[in-house]
């Protein structure tokens, strides 16, 4: 093993990468919503109310943003017990959010708007579904943080991973609020 001089980085590279990745994910949803706008201006567009449970899921994800923020704060204060609790609650809220979206899909289907129905409904399934996958990705990241917190053999004192996970979590929250406002207005 050889050791070399250290290299100073201005911002942690993982944080930098995350910001660029968030820009990239945003572009994908811009792609979806642009397609939605283009289709909306064409014939056969069917406008309908979004499932009410989407509003409940919004409250859930907002709450989860708060809990992940508090988790990060607790981590920085080395209050590991509270940190573990809050990170677990955040992951659970993420799963509840995904479950709410799934129930929303069932409600849509039961109201005569299946995935292969009108294009306007198909868009809801795809856009909300792809966002849900991003949330579930975040849940996996949080669970990894959680497992790391319980690891006894190697102690991690760097807050970078939890900062990255928290920033991503806030991002999927903001993204959902954008999508909800967009889908509510551009019906």
């Amino acid at each position, binding site marked *: 093993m050889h050791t070399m001089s250290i290299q100073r980085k201005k911002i942690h590279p993982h944080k930098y990468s995350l910001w660029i990745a968030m820009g990239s994910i945003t572009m994908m949803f811009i792609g979806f919503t642009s397609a939605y706008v283009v289709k909306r201006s064409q014939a056969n567009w069917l406008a309908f109310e979004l499932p009410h449970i989407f509003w409940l899921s919004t409250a859930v994800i907002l709450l989860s943003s708060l809990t992940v923020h508090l988790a990060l704060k607790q981590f*920085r204060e080395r209050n590991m017990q509270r940190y573990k609790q809050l990170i677990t609650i955040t992951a659970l809220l993420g799963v509840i959010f995904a479950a709410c979206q799934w129930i929303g899909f069932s409600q849509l289907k039961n109201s005569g708007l299946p995935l292969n129905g009108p294009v306007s409904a198909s868009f809801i399934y795809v856009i909300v579904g792809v966002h849900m996958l991003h949330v579930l990705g975040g849940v996996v990241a949080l669970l990894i943080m959680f497992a790391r917190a319980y690891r006894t053999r190697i102690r991690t004192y760097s807050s970078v991973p939890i900062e990255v996970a928290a920033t991503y979590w806030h991002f999927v929250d903001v993204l959902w609020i954008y999508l909800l406002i967009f889908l509510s207005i551009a019906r």
Partner: protein
Amino acid sequence: MSNEATLHSQQEVMHGAHDHHDHEHHHEDNFISKYVFSLDHKMIAKQFLITGIVWAIIGAFFSVVFRLQLGFPDATFPWLESILGHWAKGGRITPEAYYALVTMHGTILVFFVLTAGLSGTFSNLLIPLQVGARDMASPFMNCLSYWFFFLASLVMMASLFVQTGPASGGWTMYPPLSALGDASIGSKIGVDLWLTSMALFVVSQLLGGLNYISTLLNMRTKGMSMTKMPLTIWSFFFTAVLGVLSFPVLLSGFILLLFDRHAGTSFYLSDIFIAGKALANEGGSAILYQHLFWFLGHPEVYIIILPAMGMVSEVLAVSSRKPIFGYLAMIGSLFAICILAFLVWAHHMFVTGLNPFLGAFFVLLTLLIAVPSAIKVFNWLTTIWKGNIRFTPASLFSIGFVSTFISGGLTGIWLGNSSIDIHLHDTYFVIAHFHIVMGVSAFFGMFAGIYHWFPKMYGRFMNNTIGYIHFWVTLIGAYLIFWPMHYEGMAGMPRRYFDYSSWTSFNQFGGLNQFISIVVILVFATQLLFVFNFFYSIFKGRKLTEQNPWKATSLEWTTPINPGHGNWPGEIPEVHRWAYDYSKDGRDFIPQTEPIGPNESAH
């Protein structure tokens, strides 16, 4: 306290802080960690390059096969059957095989060779070396980027062996041919594999792009300000930005396409009748796909050509022993191209019934790209003007790049005008234009890069004589192949026709098409010569005896001849000047690491 212990203690102290110091040490590698799942950016660059070369041979071979059909539509080639089996029964390829070969040729060359092979190789190789970084921002993500690319390659390759064959709707994968499994034999599982492969490919590109941007913005060595970076790095930066912003939009288009194929949605489908029977799809529009596709598709042209532009700028300065002319203008023009690349996608859609006002808008934006492009050409020419040019294979390919970029760029002005494009659309003029500008030019940039940085990659030189033969046959051959195609296109000869010989108006080009096909075979054979030179030189090429064989100024030539993982043993060199101090103050070149003298201007 040992160095390592100091690092540990630093990390302890800095926990929670935003500044971060990495623990920079590397374990001894075994075969798997050194050559297979390597975390070293230089090895990953080689992996991209060698995979790209394999793909290039396959993709180019496909073009030889379909050129046989175009050049000799009535002839049979029994040997083809032994390679392609039932796709070429009796020695003649079937129309289905023809379309599949054309589709795979385009897909492979555009994405797997000129995107991953070119950008993946040189961004990986040069970004850490030229900005003075130990490795990429995330070596693990970098490794993952290659393996996603490899996985994408395997899936695409697998599609060649399925019973119904690979996708055959064209490399653009337009619906409805791609959206309906029953549309043609090439619309079946081949399209699913194509879409899966491309999704993996997009993931690979995003992982790579994130790393490139993070590394060059965040991990530059001391003194390496943005305006001291070589133009290669600037071009890789803009390429990565284009990639991370445009590939996700393509992915959104592919996701909708997959839903149309398998979930009965109608994003792209409407009023489809098969054998007189209407399908259930309503309200979809194939044009929507085109918008999403070309939002990536046009930046993709620049994702391919920008790295080549950067490398050519570098090689021209080194080989002419002159500073690059108009360094800031070169960066500005790269930026302008990058912005405009996002605003011109609809020029691919002039014949789709686009609103004429909108068409005029896209014509204007398209023609505007000629301005930064012309700035670059002017600066390349003024860089080599009165230079003491060393005609290495790398410099010849760079000059060839400028030549073909001018040729292809000029015909782009024709196609950028909607009124002319409506006549030329889907003719051989378009084929000639884009092959010259983003096929030949980009390949020339890639060849220039390989010849120039081969010593850095392998510690040996490639054979120059073979390099000269490679250059001249390829340059003359490329013009002989694509120049006549412009005339065929102007005469209205359409692309994508399997057999044009029954139309009198196009049959007149039979002799010309035979000539083109023969040149294609010759040029292909010459590329095999290059491949031989490349692999032979890795093991048997003349060994490097000095660190800086080209007498270049940039940082990669300050590393040892065969740099290990971490690039520089000991301290990373500090930078004091830009990368183009050639023929200054009576000196041939001044490395970037040399401090600026008391009476010396910055540049």
